[in-house]
């Protein structure tokens, strides 16, 4: 009789211990005898402060080169070719510099530009127009060339062969500068910092054995040298009255401060929908738009020391794209919206300071894209917005 008893015991134990099945009872929570069951609430965080400022634009690693003038921004090009190992003798007889033009900014006729030899060393990541504007030979041995107001073409200009021969023989090689006296638009070219279609220097030379040969050499460094007319100095806080700017060439970014005081600290933020409204009449972007991201400010709550202001670099910044033709940009797709939701949650729960946000381009120095943001509620409600969907915790059982 023991065996059936043991089997019964074992079966009972298995049945009792393992057979648990949970399914939800169909119900509204109103029958639950609680003051609150944590219903969803929707709030719009008021925008209480908006400003803008400029910061230096680094063009050394930009994917483009800019030459010309547009919207008070002028740009020259410095370019250097160091790798001349393909030539065995200083017998270059022709040197043609080629640029692939990919866009133009402004509507105007062609302008004339010149080639100059740079006589001071420079570094691609740190060089500026101020450091080179007096560092090149004003006289040029090359004929001027014309820059065409086209969105796609190849610009070819002649570099004096004797410059190249001097570089081959070991002379000082600081590259060349493309300059202009007056320009009515900005031409955009592809730089060496992309994988294809970069500038090239086509050389015709005679080998030691007397054979004519050619070689194509890419640049080792190229950079746009930007200068500004009638712009406020960098790191100067500019209050915004009607419009705020984000500008790839001028270096503008926008500061925003929202009021989160209506969101209780223990609220769980399920979604923070961030939006920007742009004035399309003064917004100009490339075909793929201007990518912007939203940084949380973690120091300088009063926005007084912009040069030392620290932005959060721990968490991933939400990113969106402002395009010409779409008035409203909303960060609404995953995972970007989850980053924005997390950023707002950190502020409301007290894990991050509420010092505001900086909206800035991810492509400074790349082109002449400029976005004009509405800043005033009078503009038919057009202004930066933050729609927050949240829930308070339910009342506990006891």
């Amino acid at each position, binding site marked *: 009789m023991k065996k059936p008893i043991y089997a019964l015991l074992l079966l009972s134990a298995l049945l009792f211990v393992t057979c648990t099945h949970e399914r939800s*009872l169909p119900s509204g929570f109103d029958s639950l005898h609680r003051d609150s069951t944590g219903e969803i609430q929707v709030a719009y965080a008021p925008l209480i402060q908006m400003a803008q400022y400029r910061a230096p634009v680094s063009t050394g690693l930009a994917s483009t080169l800019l030459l010309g003038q547009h919207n008070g921004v002028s740009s020259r090009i410095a370019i250097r070719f160091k790798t001349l190992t393909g030539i065995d003798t200083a017998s270059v007889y022709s040197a043609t510099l080629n640029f692939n033009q990919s866009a133009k900014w402004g509507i105007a006729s062609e302008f004339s530009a010149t080639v100059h030899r740079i006589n001071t060393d420079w570094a691609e990541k740190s060089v500026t127009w101020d450091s080179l504007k007096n560092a090149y030979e004003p006289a040029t041995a090359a004929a001027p060339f014309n820059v065409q107001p086209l969105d796609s073409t190849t610009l070819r200009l002649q570099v004096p062969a004797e410059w190249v021969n001097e570089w081959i023989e070991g002379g000082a090689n600081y590259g060349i500068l493309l300059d202009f006296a007056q320009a009515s638009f900005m031409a955009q070219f592809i730089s060496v910092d992309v994988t294809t279609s970069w500038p090239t220097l086509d050389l015709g030379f005679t080998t030691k054995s007397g054979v004519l040969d050619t070689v194509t050499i890419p640049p080792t460094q190229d950079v746009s040298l930007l200068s500004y007319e009638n712009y406020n100095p960098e790191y100067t806080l500019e209050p915004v009255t009607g419009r705020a700017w984000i500008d790839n060439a001028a270096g503008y970014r926008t500061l925003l401060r929202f009021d989160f005081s209506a969101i209780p600290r223990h609220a769980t933020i399920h979604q923070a929908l961030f939006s920007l409204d742009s004035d399309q009449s003064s917004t100009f972007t490339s075909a793929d738009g201007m990518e912007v991201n939203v940084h949380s400010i973690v120091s300088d709550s009063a926005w007084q020391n912009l040069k030392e202001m620290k932005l959060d670099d721990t968490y991933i910044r939400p990113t969106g794209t402002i395009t010409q033709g779409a008035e409203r940009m909303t960060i609404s797709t995953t995972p970007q919206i989850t980053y924005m939701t997390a950023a707002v949650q950190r502020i409301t729960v007290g894990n991050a300071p509420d010092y505001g946000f900086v909206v800035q381009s991810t492509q400074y120095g790349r082109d002449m894209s400029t976005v004009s943001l509405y800043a005033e509620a009078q503009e038919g409600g057009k202004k930066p917005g933050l729609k927050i969907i949240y829930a308070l915790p339910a009342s506990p059982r006891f």
Partner: protein
Amino acid sequence: MNFFSIDRMKHRIPFGPALLAGLLLVMVHPAHADSYYSSIGLGMPRYFVSTKAHGMGGAGLGVVDRMSLNALNPAAIQIYGLTTLGVNLEYEYVDNKSQMGGVKTRNGNAIAMQFVVPVQKHVTLISMLRPLVSSRYTLSFAEENSDYAYTRTLKGNGGINSASLGLQYLRGERWAAAALIDFNFGSYSEEWKMDFSAAEFRDATDLFSSYVWGLGFDLGAIYRINKVLSLGAVYRSGSDMHLETSATLGNGFKIAADSNKIDVKYPASFGVGASINLKKWLFAADFYNQSWRHYALNGQKQPGFKSFQRFSAGVEFLESRNPLERYRRRIALRMGGYYARLPFSNDAGQQVHETFASFGIGLPFSVTVGQVDLAFEIGRRGDVAKFMYKDTIFRLNGSVVGSERWFQRRY
């Protein structure tokens, strides 16, 4: 028949596994399948006497049985000098129906344990782990509009157990009394989950955890008027319990337990029972009352609570207790039923009630020092029209009781 002429070697094996099973299975919450009613107050009051009593409609306050350890009236325990261990398991299957639909849930778990040791000729040491209240529910709610679509799910679980230690005094053949100190303890958890259908929303879960503890005592008595008729009575004191709740919210915010403390008044209860023991037949009936209208939080009585009252009756048929008889003649057959008014009432003051029928069987093993009891109950609780929910319940209760001559007392 000398119940003590037992070969020790013969019974070592079943007692050991039973003890191990008891230790492994017993440290759990009291278990029921889901019921909306258990989300109210402290949960569903648990009325547990023994599995044998479950087979007899729950009646057992006035029943003395050596192989059935009475968890509600410790005075009715009679072990005749044998150290005895009992472990109780329960499985419940519930068909929940409301106006919005129905769902079936099930749950199985260990629910109680008793360990009884003879101390002196007339004194027995009793230790027990018993359920007092249990709570288990999963509710869900869905909403959809132009901005969002989500499902909110609340999962609640918990209950209070009583760990009791005390003594029973046996005075001759007529009467016995017992007193136990109860350490009442338990926990409750609620998980509020928000699941959005779109990935652009952040799902979140808020978790509330409450821990409760307090002291109380049990008094039990049994009086055998004659060989046929016995009367039993129990009193369980109320318990002033302390409850602390902590929370971890979906946003990472934590609320510490020491910032949310509550005093809980767990109500007292009493019960009376009678049994008539004929040669092959045993009849039993109980009445039990717990004053849930006195249930209070921080001194404030909670509205909508009334007394828990239960009326139980049952019968057992056992052809023979002679260990030399054929096994099938030593199997006990039981049936019974009960009607209970639960502490919960609706706005009109009507109390939720439940009605059950039960059947049971007792299977002795190891001659006479071990027994497996099984009880099957089927019943109904609530009413959709009056109380929003109606539960149809199928409950299987099982116990294993084994004895051994540890700390032998020669009588």
